[in-house]
């Protein structure tokens, strides 16, 4: 066989090679053209890894003492037997033996055969080394890919056109479950934001964005972390803190009327008093008892709020009567604070829980009085009732101290007080508006707030007539 033929054959066979086994099949095919052999075995570190024909072994004792010698020498060799030869062909790269091909042949090798075999052992050494390198690189890639896909964080790579180039498994899940997430992230990236949080309808995500250079091209690396449970824990912690505040708050609230009642009754018991004085004192005791009752009923409502067991009993009532009654209830308080209470209502029947709606009005009204602005010359609260067909709107407006816009959502939360500290400047449990909201919502209505600090506050309660 000519050298060109050998090389062409080698190129052809080697192009089919995908793994070590197919390399040996190819080498075996090429070797057949150089020297006829009955059996071919391949050893990798003393282990038989390939046989041609399959399952045929050359007795190892015949040549095993030559294997370390071959490893050192790295030349093909032929051991003469009684009626043939054992050929030992090292497959190697530079100084390193990669495997050893062993053949059994009856043919006496010529100088040319040995030359060709030497060439083959060099070429297949290079191929084998490359195969092992590819295998190594493949495994390394698989290793890193697994790590990336096992990560709890979603990883996304975007190109300069903000198109997705890569997503790991987690990111795929995140984007699939939250369809609006990608759009939101891209918008924020275009806003040059690097760290931000995105809330979707079901989850909370913390996103970090990094401009990176991957293989010479500009990319955007996006890290998506689902922090829904962290957010929940955070909320619970906040709630816990609020509850602690609440307990301190409510204790104080309960103690104040109780202390007053105790002191007045004590005085009455120990001091000779006129009938007029006794009446005056009992008045105070009575109003403080009312205050205590209110607080306790708030607490009761609150526990119903917590367990969502509050029930309403609807009946046909005149809304104006409720408002008049509420204003009467708070008459003293309004007088004390020097607040004028006006109302505007024309007879209007709606179906609602009389007691509960009165509670709503009293609460809104007492807040309006409580938070009146002492700096203003004239203080007022006005209640308007608007008949709007299917619905009725009750608007409670004052010119009090107002509520900052940032607190609009929070004032309806349980325990929340705008001052939020134990200052007790204004008494209250922080439960009122939460209860109001619950009641309004149980009536399938809603409550909105409009306000400007230092100017006014306006609560708008919308209720269906039926």
């Amino acid at each position, binding site marked *: 066989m000519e050298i060109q033929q050998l090389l062409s054959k080698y190129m052809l066979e080697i192009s089919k090679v995908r793994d070590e086994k197919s390399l040996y099949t190819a080498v075996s095919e090429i070797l057949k053209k150089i020297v006829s052999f009955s059996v071919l075995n391949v050893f990798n570190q003393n282990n038989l890894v390939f046989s041609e024909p399959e399952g045929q072994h050359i007795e190892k004792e015949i040549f095993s*003492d*030559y294997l*370390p*010698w071959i490893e*050192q*020498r*790295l*030349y*093909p*060799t*032929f*051991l*003469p037997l009684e009626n043939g*030869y054992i050929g030992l062909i090292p497959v190697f*790269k*530079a*100084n390193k033996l990669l495997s050893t091909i062993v053949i059994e042949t009856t043919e*006496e*090798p*010529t*100088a*040319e055969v*040995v*030359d060709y075999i*030497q*060439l083959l052992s*060099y070429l297949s050494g290079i191929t084998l080394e490359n195969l092992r390198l590819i295998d190594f690189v493949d495994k390394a890639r698989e290793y890193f890919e697994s790590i990336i896909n096992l990560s709890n964080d979603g990883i996304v790579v975007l190109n300069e056109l903000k198109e997705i180039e890569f997503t790991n498994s987690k990111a795929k899940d995140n984007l699939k479950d939250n369809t609006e997430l990608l759009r939101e992230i891209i918008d924020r990236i275009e806003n040059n934001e690097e760290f931000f949080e995105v809330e979707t309808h079901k989850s909370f995500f913390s996103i970090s964005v990094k401009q990176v250079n991957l293989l010479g091209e500009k990319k955007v690396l996006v890290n998506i972390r689902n922090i829904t449970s962290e957010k929940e824990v955070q909320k619970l912690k906040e709630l816990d803190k609020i509850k602690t505040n609440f307990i301190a708050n409510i204790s104080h609230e309960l103690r104040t009327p109780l202390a007053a009642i105790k002191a007045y009754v004590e005085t009455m018991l120990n001091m000779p008093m006129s009938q007029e004085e006794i009446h005056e004192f009992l008045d105070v005791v009575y109003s403080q008892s009312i205050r205590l009752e209110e607080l306790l009923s708030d607490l009761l409502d609150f526990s119903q709020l917590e367990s969502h067991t509050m029930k309403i009993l609807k009946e046909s009532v005149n809304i104006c009567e409720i408002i008049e009654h509420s204003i009467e209830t708070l008459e003293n308080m309004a007088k004390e604070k020097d607040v004028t209470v006006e109302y505007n209502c024309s007879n209007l029947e709606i179906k609602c829980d009389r007691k509960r709606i009165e509670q709503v009005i009293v609460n809104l009204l007492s807040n309006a009085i409580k938070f009146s602005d002492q700096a203003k010359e004239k203080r007022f609260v006005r209640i308007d009732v608007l008949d709007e067909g299917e619905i009725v709107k009750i608007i409670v407006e004052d010119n009090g101290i107002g509520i900052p816009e940032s607190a609009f959502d929070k004032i309806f939360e349980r325990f929340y007080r705008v001052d939020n500290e134990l200052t007790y400047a204004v008494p209250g449990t922080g439960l009122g508006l939460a209860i109001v909201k619950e009641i309004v919502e149980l009536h399938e209505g809603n409550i909105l707030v409009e306000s400007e600090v230092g100017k006014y506050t306006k609560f708008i309660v919308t209720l269906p007539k039926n």
Partner: protein
Amino acid sequence: MMIKEMISTVTEIPTPDVIVQQIISTASNPNVSAKELEKVISMDVGLSTKILKLVNSAYYALPRKITKLSEAIVIIGFKTVRNLALSVFTYSALHSKTTFVDHDKLWSHFMATAIFSEQIAKSIGYMNREEVFLAGLMHDVGKLAVDLLFPMYIFELSKVSRDLSKPMFLIEYEIGVDTHMEIGGELLRHWKFPEEYVSIAILHEKPSLNPDSPYIEMSCIVHLANVFSNIFLPGNSLSYGKPYLDQVVFKVLGIKPSRLETMYHELEIVFNKSKDLIFGGVEDETGVQT
């Protein structure tokens, strides 16, 4: 006068006999079989004994002793057997006459360079290691020729090299005589060695003289082996001083200068294993201590 021109005309220089000539041509014939090569070598009974002795030396470290030449040829290879036959011839040519030069030392330089050449080829993954071995063995035959023709001159030349601590070939350049490289090339041509061995003998001190030579890789390997041989056995080549290292080797062989250090350690191991070949017994012309 031109020493080169004398090579083919004077009788002081031994020529390979018919058998050695045949071995050279036989081993270069691709279709030769082990039996045919064995037949040629066996014509000289002494030669086959000497070759078998070399084959069984510690350098080849064979797991089993080889007793038949035909076995040696298939086990150790056609070309290696050819190399051994030629080393027997070179050894005897070198020891054919007593001069002022220590021929054992010069021989150790020849053999060390041959062994180092083969090892460097192995280390960098160069395929034709047997050819490189032979080229290393033959690289300094020019010194042999000069010694046989003008023993006093080469003795003095070596002394100047030692006194000035300067490699011999640089002094030869300065004097303007035919260098031992040129003479060696001429001798190999005369001995009918293939052209590559002639080129390598000419380029072995400074391969960059002809960077376009088709045999530049082998020339660089032998050059590097020659440098290491002079480091391991200083003065044995009759040349002294810091060996000249041609920078072209790094580019041609694709190695970094830092590689030379690891190479030095590799060669140290090989050197210790092949002492029987390098420091052969004086009486025994195979060079194998028995």
